[in-house]
């Protein structure tokens, strides 16, 4: 809030100047218009009332009264001329009301001016306070708007790289063998900030390089397994092995972490040579494990499905349940749901089960798993990391080929066991 304003009072000289100027003006007019009637005493009211009235209105009570007294004094002096006592008393008696009225007019106008000035001063101060308050509120609302925008931006971009992880994985799955490893390392770099990493295949007691990204020379050529004790330990335990933070920060160990992987009939290790310490956390390693595990698993599944497709395209129920369980695990640990679709034939006479399988295989996206319901009553399709939209699109595509198919979709998430979900899928 602003301090109350304190305007400067008018100076004495300023008041005197105005009194003299107005007095001279009136005296001049009086001399020109009525030279015989000094002080316009014959006029009622006398125009000389203007002097105390104007001064009182402009400068307040005291100025008004003083100007009234001076006007009355001037009038007396102008009329008595010689200043004899009897004449003075006689004049005062004759024009007492006029003389007093001059002083009273100054007083009343001065008081009126004080009243209005007090009011206007209050309004001015209120106005100033309101103006400053409105400026402050405007600035605050502007700041709040900016902060809200920034926070929304941050919230929107929070975990943005992870939100597209399924898309990255989808790109990795169909890649040829020669490119997938480098693609995987690049995905790890972009989503987990793993700066330098290499992927090796195990061949007996040797590690053969498959791809490397930003690594030193030693991780670009084959190396003995015994040269990297951390890799030996990781393979033995089948678990991720990392350095502890203090050793990773300043130590000169060959690598920071080793993660074993296996795909079909190939085994190996992922070696993380370097990464920023701010990212050296369990949650980042969890993400690394997830990406590596899913990449190899889904590639394997794709190969298996391709092989199965040649002989019918369906997974055994046990394999399907294992994938369902893994999807539930991912949904629980990473809040990344998958979708499932059941497809039943409404009329098994007009369309055979084989035709349904064929139509579904054509409509199926790159990554999905299918299995038959007991008694070939229909199909259950698992779409890993896919939302309802992808499941609906697939159902539409199947309906386009076989109009009388009944499709139902489910989101694979929650704390239920895979067997329970499987039962629900069959019932649905």
């Amino acid at each position, binding site marked *: 809030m602003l301090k109350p304003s304190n305007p400067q009072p008018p100076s004495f000289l300023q008041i005197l100047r105005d009194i003299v100027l107005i007095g001279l003006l009136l005296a001049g007019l009086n001399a020109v218009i009525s030279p015989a009637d000094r002080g316009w005493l014959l006029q009622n009211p006398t125009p000389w009332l203007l002097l105390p009235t104007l001064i009182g209105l402009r400068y307040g009570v005291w100025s008004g009264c003083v100007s009234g007294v001076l006007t009355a004094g001037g009038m007396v002096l102008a009329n008595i001329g010689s200043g004899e006592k009897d004449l003075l008393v006689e004049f005062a008696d004759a024009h007492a009301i006029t003389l007093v009225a001059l002083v009273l007019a100054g007083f009343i106008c001065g008081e009126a001016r004080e009243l209005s000035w007090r009011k206007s001063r209050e309004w001015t101060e209120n106005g100033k306070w309101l103006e400053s308050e409105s400026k402050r509120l405007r600035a605050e609302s502007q700041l709040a708007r900016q902060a809200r925008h920034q926070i929304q931006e941050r919230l929107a971009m929070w975990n943005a790289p992870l939100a597209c992880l399924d898309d990255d994985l989808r790109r990795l799955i169909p890649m040829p063998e020669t490119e997938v490893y480098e693609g995987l390392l690049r995905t790890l770099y972009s989503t987990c900030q793993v700066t330098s990493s290499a992927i090796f295949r195990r061949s007996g007691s040797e590690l053969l390089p498959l791809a490397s990204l930003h690594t030193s020379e030693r991780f670009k050529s084959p190396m003995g397994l015994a040269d990297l004790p951390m890799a030996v*330990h990781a393979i033995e335990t089948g678990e991720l092995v990392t350095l502890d933070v203090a050793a990773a920060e300043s130590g000169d160990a060959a690598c920071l972490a080793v993660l074993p992987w296996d795909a079909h009939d190939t085994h190996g290790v992922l070696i993380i040579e370097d990464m920023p310490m701010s990212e050296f956390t369990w949650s980042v390693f969890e993400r690394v494990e997830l990406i590596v595990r899913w990449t190899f698993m889904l590639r394997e599944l794709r190969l298996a499905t391709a092989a199965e497709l040649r002989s019918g395209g369906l997974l055994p129920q046990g394999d399907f349940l294992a994938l369902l369980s893994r999807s539930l695990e991912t949904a629980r640990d990473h809040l990344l749901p998958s979708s499932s679709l059941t497809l039943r034939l409404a009329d098994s006479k007009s369309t055979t089960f084989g035709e349904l399988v064929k139509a579904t295989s054509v409509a199926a996206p790159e990554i999905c798993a299918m299995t038959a319901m007991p008694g070939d009553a229909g199909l259950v399709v698992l779409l890993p990391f896919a939302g309802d939209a992808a499941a609906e699109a697939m159902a539409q595509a199947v309906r386009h080929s076989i109009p009388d198919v009944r499709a139902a979709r489910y989101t694979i998430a929650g704390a239920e066991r895979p067997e329970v979900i499987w039962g629900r899928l069959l019932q649905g």
Partner: protein
Amino acid sequence: MSDHSMQLLILSALSLVPLVIVLALGLAPRGQEKMRNWRVGNPLHTAVLPVVRPAFLEPLVSQLRGMHGSEMNGYAVGLRHLPVEAAAPVLRYLQHCADPAVELYAQTVLQGGKDVLQSLCGRLQESSATCSQRGMCALLEVGLRLAHPALLPSSEKASWISRMEANAEQALARFSQPSVRLLAAMARVFMAARRLEHAAALIQRLPANSPVKQELSQAFAFASRQLPVLDS
């Protein structure tokens, strides 16, 4: 064998015992010593994670303005999981909260986050003349985090960056074959210090077509304002 020679034999055998122990201790721990620095498995696999709560869709700014007192405790404490430079503005806001507990939490979390970075930076700085490449990388990275505007007043920024610049120069002199991470960290420091020619030279040394090089080239182009102006 006489008693005397038997006694002599036993005594000799006993005198060898400490030697055997010393040898065993000297040989065995070498492997163990290394493994002591290792962590096997990820504890997140077995940890009991907190229950996931439904997300608040109300914007944070509205919650901060609308919630009072102890309701904000959760925020202040939860923010310790974020990088301190990202959480600092909200923590500073919470320090003006009417509830002394929230004020204290916010102050403690902010101070604690800064202290962790500063003590790590100090520790790494002490050994900067002898540390490994990774140590030097960590020093430069932590230094750049501490240079974040939310943590460092602008009046101190110039002196802090020049200190990091000296560290980068030292790293450049010490390591003839710097790792990619170290090259990237040095380039970032030189960019922050507006020594663009040094940064450009370091970026050139990065492996061709590597993601790090692409990323830093873009950052460099932005820093030197050489981005093409696209007319929409």
